[in-house]
């Protein structure tokens, strides 16, 4: 019997989350290293989603196991766990991958618990080991240590992977094979946890401007920025450079900026061409999220700040003495040029 690698394709407001394509691309690589009898399949749950299944095929899913029902319009762990665990129970995948999104982080471990199997959380990479088993690489201690996690006996071997760390391949149009999951047999209505938990609505406010992950240059501010007025300068600088602003935890705590631009283990992982940090101390939780940046430049008045250990270029100065000067130098209206 062939090895089955499953990827759960998260649907958010009718669209498939990008991490699903990243996972499918990686799953194809895993399938190759296992051998010819390995195949990639996807699970798709939601309402009015059938047309999306073709996209999953384009990224390598030969079969899409789908549950399409009005009761599944909004995500709920109570219904989704039941549906996905039911599918896995019926088809016995060997590997089952999830995106470590907000939904995936609540859903994947619950599916694993229902199936009484193991799951590696928030992996930064996955590959196939010598025994043709899944090897998941998991950061801990704020990214200071990376450990391999194996699931030697129970199946499926499960893992959740952070969005944006795996590489998406280019899609190739192929016909899709959909296998529909009958919901009536699952008796969702009779489950007490389903009746106790009602998803009411989803509210999303996609931030304006360039998404952090797509920016070539990221200007990151930490506690050393010192105030919301200076924070505006930092945002202006990011904009003038055609990049994006990012922050560390203390900047969020000070309410200078929103949490969605936070970089680190519990925020985003970024890999811009240039990372430009102001007043960032360099806590391991933050460094873990920015260490894949191309060139790292940091401005901090503390010469002993840990951030300098992970920087290519260091400036020992108050962030706010450099920030306005740099802003003047890079403004598109060429203020700096005029001065010369």
């Amino acid at each position, binding site marked *: 019997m062939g090895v089955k690698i499953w990827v759960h394709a998260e649907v958010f407001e009718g669209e498939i989350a990008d991490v699903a394509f990243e996972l499918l691309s990686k799953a194809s690589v895993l399938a190759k290293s296992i051998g010819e009898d390995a195949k990639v399949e996807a699970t798709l749950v939601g309402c009015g989603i059938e047309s999306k299944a073709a996209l999953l095929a384009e990224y390598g899913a030969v079969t899409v196991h789908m549950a399409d029902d009005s009761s599944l319009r909004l995500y709920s762990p109570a219904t989704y766990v039941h549906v996905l665990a039911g599918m896995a129970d019926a088809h016995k995948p060997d590997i089952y991958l999830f995106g470590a999104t907000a939904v995936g982080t609540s859903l994947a*471990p619950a599916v694993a*618990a229902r199936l009484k199997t193991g799951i590696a959380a928030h992996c930064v990479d996955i590959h196939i080991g010598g025994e043709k088993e899944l090897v998941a690489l998991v950061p801990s201690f704020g990214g200071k240590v990376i450990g391999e996690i194996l699931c030697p006996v129970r199946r499926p071997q499960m893992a959740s992977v952070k969005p944006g760390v795996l590489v998406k391949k280019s899609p190739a149009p192929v016909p899709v094979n959909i296998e529909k999951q009958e919901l009536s047999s699952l008796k969702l209505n009779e489950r007490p946890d389903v009746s106790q938990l009602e998803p009411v609505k989803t509210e999303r406010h996609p931030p304006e401007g360039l998404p952090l992950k797509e920016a070539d240059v990221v200007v990151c501010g930490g506690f050393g920025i010192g105030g919301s007025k200076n924070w505006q300068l930092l945002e202006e600088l990011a904009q003038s450079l055609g990049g994006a602003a990012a922050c560390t935890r203390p900047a969020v705590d000070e309410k200078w900026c929103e949490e969605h631009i936070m970089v680190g283990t519990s925020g985003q992982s970024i890999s811009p061409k240039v990372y430009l940090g102001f007043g960032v101390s360099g806590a391991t939780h933050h460094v873990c999220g920015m260490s894949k940046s191309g060139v790292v430049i940091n401005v901090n008045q503390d010469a002993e700040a840990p951030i300098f250990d992970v920087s290519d270029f260091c400036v020992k100065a108050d962030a706010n003495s450099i920030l306005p000067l740099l802003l003047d130098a890079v403004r598109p209206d060429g203020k700096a040029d005029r001065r010369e």
Partner: protein
Amino acid sequence: MPYNVAVCIKPVPDPKYYDKVTIDPVKKTITRTGIPILFNPVDKNALEAALRLRERYSGTVAVISMAPPEGAEILREALAMGADSAYLLSDRAFAGADTLATSYTLFHGLKKIEKEKNYLFDFVLCGCESADGATAQVSSQLGEWLRMPHLWNVFLMDAAETGKAGGEHEGNVFSVKTKIENGYMEWRIKSPAVMGVSRELNKPRFTSAMGIVKARNKPITLWNRADLSEADDEFLGLKGSPTQPGEIFAVDLKRSGKFLTGTHEEIVKQIVAIMKTNGILVGD
């Protein structure tokens, strides 16, 4: 309606000392000697939520931890914050547990508390993740073992509303919000339920001198493997963990760290030059 609330707490190595974490290159183990343990920060938000429920609706707050014996000092802190009783699940048989085995052990601990106290928990609250492992998996898996609905990343729990007798929401229903990317989801959840809470939910109180005095007279019950008589070895500790650790690697992120020198204006020019050579269009 009074609520019986359990709060799961993890003692973690203090994140301030993660620089001191080293790997034994031969034994492939993590050395954390000398790193003090700490109340996992977001677990305090879970305890705060439980204490506020008790203050508003009356009821009880029990705290539980699966940890080595020194974990008792963290539970003592929870008692000083205001918890009524504390339970420490500690045994070599529990050691090396992954999240499935951890949640299974906590599940049996909670069942035993319910049995001894002769009540059922209405809510089981956890922090949404731990500072060290940060898997964020335990609250959802605990919900599965308990067969309760579970929500993760809860940042808002609105006052309970009482549903109409015999109606769709008979009993107490909470309006809850969970964080998602760029927004939130809103839920109605009926107890009993498990929630993994986020740090935005509330601001945990400080322990008062009075709290510390009171905590001295509150019990910390220690249970070992034999006490959890209904638990199955198949799911306990390292042996009962479906995931097993492989190799571990220290991550070396060190870079050259060249200091730019000169006047601030000169430094700014150098930064602009570095950005240009790395493909950033500056002022063009």
